[in-house]
């Protein structure tokens, strides 16, 4: 599986270096930011990384139109403003946007359904890059297809830009339930399981044996409160992406710090209660059920 370095030559972009980067983010919160000011607020609040993008998902949803990779100048300015890792989004299948992001020196690329897909059949061949990728998934088969294409980190998709955590819950429960099911199957049923999951047999067999994904699993899409973040951690997420939930709320700096603390003490209700006080207004949000199916971002990617 992992790339073994030969005796002495240094190796970059290996599986271990890519997946290892995600291991270091565990227990942390990655925040969407659209400018230097927000990036500094996120870093101050204790974010482990920021995701640089032009519009947060709530605005993408409200304004419509085609959504693309961010302006390189904007990404540069954020890279120069903060010392924590900087991630950025490329459109699904848009390998040239990914090449540009790698050239800019971003630390992780999110091949994201939040942007308008550039290819409705193929995702990016992520093995071709030195920089690691995170991809969204709504179920185990989708996660394994992304890992097979080279993703070094998975996030459950949820429904971005809603402030409604229900889809994040569904996707996290689904992925973990499907992993548990594989662990319970006899070996001779794994072939059909792989077919049903539409995932490579080798990966399915590995999951069945280890009972876990070979990469870190974060959660995303609709997390708006400290309690939302803690619930996702209790459901087994390794960490949390927060998009619109912070900078669409009444007091972003305080809410951001509270979400970070609740993620660390996700299993301590007294602490979650304490950090949840006095945060002002949460993002107003929309219920996922009220969004017509063609406008649901989680259904992009396959």
């Amino acid at each position: 599986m992992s790339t073994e370095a030969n005796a002495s030559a240094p190796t970059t972009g290996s599986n271990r270096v890519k997946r290892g980067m995600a291991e270091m983010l565990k227990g942390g919160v990655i925040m969407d930011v659209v400018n230097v000011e927000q990036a500094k607020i996120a870093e101050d609040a204790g974010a482990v990384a920021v995701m640089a993008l032009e519009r947060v998902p709530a605005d993408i949803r409200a304004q419509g139109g085609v959504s693309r990779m961010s302006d390189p100048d904007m990404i540069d300015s954020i890279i120069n403003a903060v010392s924590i890792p900087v991630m950025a989004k490329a459109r699904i299948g848009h390998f040239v946007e990914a090449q540009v992001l790698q050239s800019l020196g971003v630390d992780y690329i999110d091949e994201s359904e939040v942007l308008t897909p550039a290819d409705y059949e193929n995702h990016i061949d992520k093995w071709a890059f030195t920089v690691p990728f995170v991809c969204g998934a709504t179920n185990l088969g989708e996660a394994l297809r992304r890992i097979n294409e080279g993703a070094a980190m998975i996030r459950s998709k949820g429904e971005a830009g809603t402030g409604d955590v229900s889809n994040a819950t569904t996707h996290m429960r689904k992925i973990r339930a499907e992993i548990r099911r594989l662990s319970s199957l006899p070996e001779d049923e794994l072939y059909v399981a792989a077919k049903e999951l539409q995932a490579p047999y080798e990966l399915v067999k590995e999951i069945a044996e280890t009972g876990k994904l070979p990469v870190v699993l974060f959660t995303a899409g609709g997390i708006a409160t400290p309690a939302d973040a803690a619930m996702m951690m209790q459901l087994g997420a390794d960490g949390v992406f927060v998009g619109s939930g912070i900078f669409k709320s009444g007091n972003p700096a305080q809410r951001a710090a509270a979400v970070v603390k609740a993620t660390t003490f996700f299993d301590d209700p007294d602490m979650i209660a304490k950090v949840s006080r006095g945060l002002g207004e949460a993002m107003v949000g929309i219920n996922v059920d009220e969004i017509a199916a063609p406008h649901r971002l989680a259904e992009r990617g396959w």
Partner: protein
Amino acid sequence: MVTSAVPQPSSPPAAALGSAPASGGPAAGGPVVGVLALQGDVREHLAALAHVGARAVKVRRPEELEGIDGLVIPGGESTTIDKLARAFGIAEPLRAKIAEGFPVYGSCAGMILLADEIADPTKDLSGHAQESFGGLDITVRRNAFGRQRESFETDLDFKEVDQAGGPVHAVFIRGPWVERVGPSVEVLAEVDPQHASHTATLEGKARIVAVRSGRLLATSFHPEVTGETRIHELFIRMIKGEA
């Protein structure tokens, strides 16, 4: 290279977490070693410690510093761990314990947090520089080897570990290096320019990536993600006063 007992990413059920000793392993008589569990690759360190016979426990609260024989500060984001450690009141008691000779091992972010001086500390919006717990008379430079694109793995000669196992395979992830060591500090490993990926930043010099002073140990790299257990073994020997 990778041994079966070691770090598997991804998540055990929440119920399995918490501050109970890590299950399994020949732990009964070993020292109790905490892993600072505010953020970072805590699970990998717990697994590596259990593998070398320690009873590994998670530490998040000041009172959890009592009753442990040593502490590991994991890899992660040093600015995040610093902020959480101050917010939850664990930074000051930990500083006091370090001053009394408490054994601590830090990998990557952990090295930064053990350094007396950070060459390029990030500053918050009010101009306050990031802090460290300190204890090691060294100056570290964060992300010295470059960004994630430049993160690399390589082999190192490493003093004080069992040399029969050959060089130590080291994974550097946006790692720091040590720019200055005080007289009390022993250098355990260096990366020379031929063994680093982003050679321009090294300016032709070998860079210090592992140090020890008294019962404090720090590495720029992550032995916990490779299955390399000799560094954790060394730390256990330091706790026991055997090294």
